[in-house]
Structures are given as structure tokens and as C-alpha cells.
């Protein structure tokens, strides 16, 4: 049985698990695992729509390997960017903010100097996370890169909530599941290390059949071994509530896909995923990008713009909750 002092400190010790507690501020991270799903498009469009709603928004381009959020906003140059902060040429992340052509919308541009920034070491990442959490803006949207590296996962975990952008294609869905599983395993790992139950997990893992790929199989097995720790880990995981956007939806089935994914995830990844909505595919996104004009500005009344607006309204209405506190 756990002693009271064993249950303490995990949030204080692991910055990724300690969400901001300021109820008037949101940090949203846009991720999804696969490249080309429209993460940067959604980030830029959400930023514009939120600024249209009168919100004070800062976008951070944390795609360290290939930043291009500024291009979606029709911007080219800025004096300062994220690279200046990462390489210690400015002391505060706040100092790298650039104003955009949209009222209330600011940007921290990704750096061109990807060679020195794409592989952040652990201490630089922690510093970056600390500065994002302390950032002085009501709404912060972090555009994170592709893949399931610890950098991507940790930027996603620090947000409240993280938003997955998925296309209605097998490759995108497959990568989104990898991404969610990586997040879940990262959270569980923090708690397993904290409670020192590696032996139990090893015993449980040896019983899981190789063909099963879901987190449910892990929990189903751990219930049989130790109900107490199964409940403890489950409660930690219940605080992880990402959201889902289906981007480039082309028909009615793509629109329904989001609800179906929520249902599957709830049962087999044991987390609550909230479906924010589907954004219809529009060829004009491509043409807007080519002309360096933000799509929302060029097509403010299109179905795609309206869908992003509706998602922005839903997000503003989402009530922030304190995450990852161990209730036991």
C-alpha cells in the first residue's frame, strides 16, 4: 500500500505533468504524428479566427525541424525568432514575439537555423516548457512537429488540451494512434517510475499477447494482477483528454469518422477524446498558400473557414481543468 508521502510531488517533479493552474489562460498544442495533415494550417486559421473573436492569441511555431507557420500567415521575415531564445541570445521567450497583420494575434516564428534547434537537449526543452507555461498571453497555441519524439510528446502533454489534427486516411489515423499511445505510455512511465512498480509492469507485460496493440490490453491484464495500481494508473490517465479535428474531410463519412474514432479510443486507448469537428477539404487552401495570403482572409465565408470558426468557439468554451493530479 502507498504511504502518503509516496503520492506527493510527481507534478512538481515532472514539469510536463504540471499544467498551468491559471484558469484564465489556455495553452493548446496542435499535433498528430503525421506530416502534411494540416497542423500549421489549422494553427494559423485558429489563431486568425480567435483574434476575430477578440481573443489575445500568441502562436508558437515549435516545429523545430521544419517551421513554416509564418508562411501560412503570409509573413516572411522577423528580427527575432525561437532560435534566438534556444541559443540563449535572448533570455525570455516573450522577447521573441512578432506582431502579425491581425489584431491581437502574435507569433513566435520558428527558426531557420534548424541544425542547432531541431534536437533540443533535455534541459533546453525544460527551459522552453517553463517559458511557454509562464507566457503572458490569454491563449497560446503551440504548433508542434511531426513524429513521436519526446520533444513532440512533451509539448503536447503540457497543453490543456492537446489537439490532434487527423486526415481521413489510414496513414494519418495510424500515426495518430501511435502518437496517442506514445503520450499515454509517457504518462504511465512517469507514474510507474514514481511509484516504483516496474517489476509489476514487467510481469504484466509478459502476459500481454503480442497481437494486441491497445492500451486496454495492458489495463485488462494489470486489473487481474493488482487492482489498486490499475486504478491508480487509470486515474492518472483519465486526466489526459486530448481533442480531435478531422481535417480535409471530403464526404459525409469523413464527418462521422471523428465520432467513431472517439468511440474506439475510449474503449481501446482508455482515454476520453473530444471531437471538435471536421474541416472540409478546399482546393483554395493550396492557392492561398501559393499567393502568400492567409486562407481565412481570402475566403472568410467558405465552409472551411466556418468550420474552423466553429472549432475556435468550442475551444474558447472548453473549461480548463487541472490535470494529472493523483486523486488516490
Amino acid at each position: 500500500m502507498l504511504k502518503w508521502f509516496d503520492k506527493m510531488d510527481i507534478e512538481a517533479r515532472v514539469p510536463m505533468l504540471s499544467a498551468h493552474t491559471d484558469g484564465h489562460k489556455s495553452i493548446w498544442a496542435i499535433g498528430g504524428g503525421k506530416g502534411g495533415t494540416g497542423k500549421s494550417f489549422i494553427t494559423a486559421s485558429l489563431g486568425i479566427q480567435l483574434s476575430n473573436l477578440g481573443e489575445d492569441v500568441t502562436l508558437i511555431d515549435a516545429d523545430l525541424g521544419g517551421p513554416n507557420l509564418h508562411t501560412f500567415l503570409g509573413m516572411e521575415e522577423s528580427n527575432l525568432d525561437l532560435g534566438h531564445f534556444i541559443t540563449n541570445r535572448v533570455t525570455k521567450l516573450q522577447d521573441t514575439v512578432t506582431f502579425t497583420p491581425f489584431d491581437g494575434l502574435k507569433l513566435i516564428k520558428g527558426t531557420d537555423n534548424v541544425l542547432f534547434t531541431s534536437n533540443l537537449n533535455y534541459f533546453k526543452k525544460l527551459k522552453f516548457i517553463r517559458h511557454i507555461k509562464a507566457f503572458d498571453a490569454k491563449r497560446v497555441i503551440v504548433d508542434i512537429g511531426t513524429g513521436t519524439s519526446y520533444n513532440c510528446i512533451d509539448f503536447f502533454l503540457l497543453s490543456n488540451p492537446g489537439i490532434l489534427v487527423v486526415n481521413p486516411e489510414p496513414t494519418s489515423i495510424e500515426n495518430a494512434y501511435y502518437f496517442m499511445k506514445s503520450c499515454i505510455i509517457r504518462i504511465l512511465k512517469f507514474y510507474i517510475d514514481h511509484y516504483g512498480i516496474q517489476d509489476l509492469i514487467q510481469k504484466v507485460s509478459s502476459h500481454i499477447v503480442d497481437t494486441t496493440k491497445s492500451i486496454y490490453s495492458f489495463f485488462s491484464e494489470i486489473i487481474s494482477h493488482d487492482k489498486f495500481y490499475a486504478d491508480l494508473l487509470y486515474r492518472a490517465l483519465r486526466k489526459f483528454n486530448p481533442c480531435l479535428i478531422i481535417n480535409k474531410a471530403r464526404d459525409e463519412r469523413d464527418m462521422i469518422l471523428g465520432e467513431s474514432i472517439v468511440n474506439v479510443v475510449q474503449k481501446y486507448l482508455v482515454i476520453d477524446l473530444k471531437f471538435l469537428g471536421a474541416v472540409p477539404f478546399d482546393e483554395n487552401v493550396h492557392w492561398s498558400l501559393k499567393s502568400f495570403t492567409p486562407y481565412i482572409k481570402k475566403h472568410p465565408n467558405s465552409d472551411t473557414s466556418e468550420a474552423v470558426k466553429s472549432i475556435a468557439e468550442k475551444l474558447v468554451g472548453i473549461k480548463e481543468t487541472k490535470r494529472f493530479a493523483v486523486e488516490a
Partner: protein
Amino acid sequence: MALKKIEDMNHYEVLNINTSASQQEIEKAYHTSKAGFQRNALAHYNLVSDQEREDMLARIEKAYLVLSHPRKRKRYDLRTFHYKTENKEPSFFRQTTERLVIEDGEKKSFWSKLKNFFSPKNK
């Protein structure tokens, strides 16, 4: 919400709806759930094994069969949640043919007290 194995989920949990869900909500949940677990559906792609998918599809069908039928649903609710047991109306006719022994409660308690007093245990 407590941690629960899928085999222990009730029909409402399988369809991911409240116990007070309307017929329309049941219908919608059934179609959404079913769509997610069809053989060629994208929603379960590379996450759920074929066996798990088929089992879940069977559970969804069974849940719908019961919950979409008002009388079956009522019977299922009674059996699953027992919420009617307290408000159950008394039967008009006797349910058994056994001989009834009606004793005076007051008298019985007096005699049992007396018996206990003189029983060897109390000595």
C-alpha cells in the same frame, strides 16, 4: 468512472450513452459505434485486432437489440440496475403455496427474551 473490463461493460457503456438516452440517441450511438468497428472502417485501423473488433461488433448488436426495444430495455434496466426493487408494488395474490406462520411480534420477542434469559449460555 471506474476502471472496467470491456466484458464487464453494460449495454449503455458499450454504446457510450447515458442510461436516460432517448431512442433517437440510442439509434445514433448504434450507427456511430457500428461504423467504427466495421471490417473496412478507418476508425479502428491498426489499433484493434480482428477478434477484438468482431467481439465488439457483436456486443454493439446485442446492446442495440435490447436497448432499442422498450420492453426489453425496461427488463434489462431492472435486472442490471435494480432501481425498481424498492418501489415494487405488492402482488395482489400470494406468490408461494407454503404454509404461512403468523406470529405476534411482541409476543415472540417476549418469549425469545425469556428463553434467552434462562438459556444455559446466560448462566
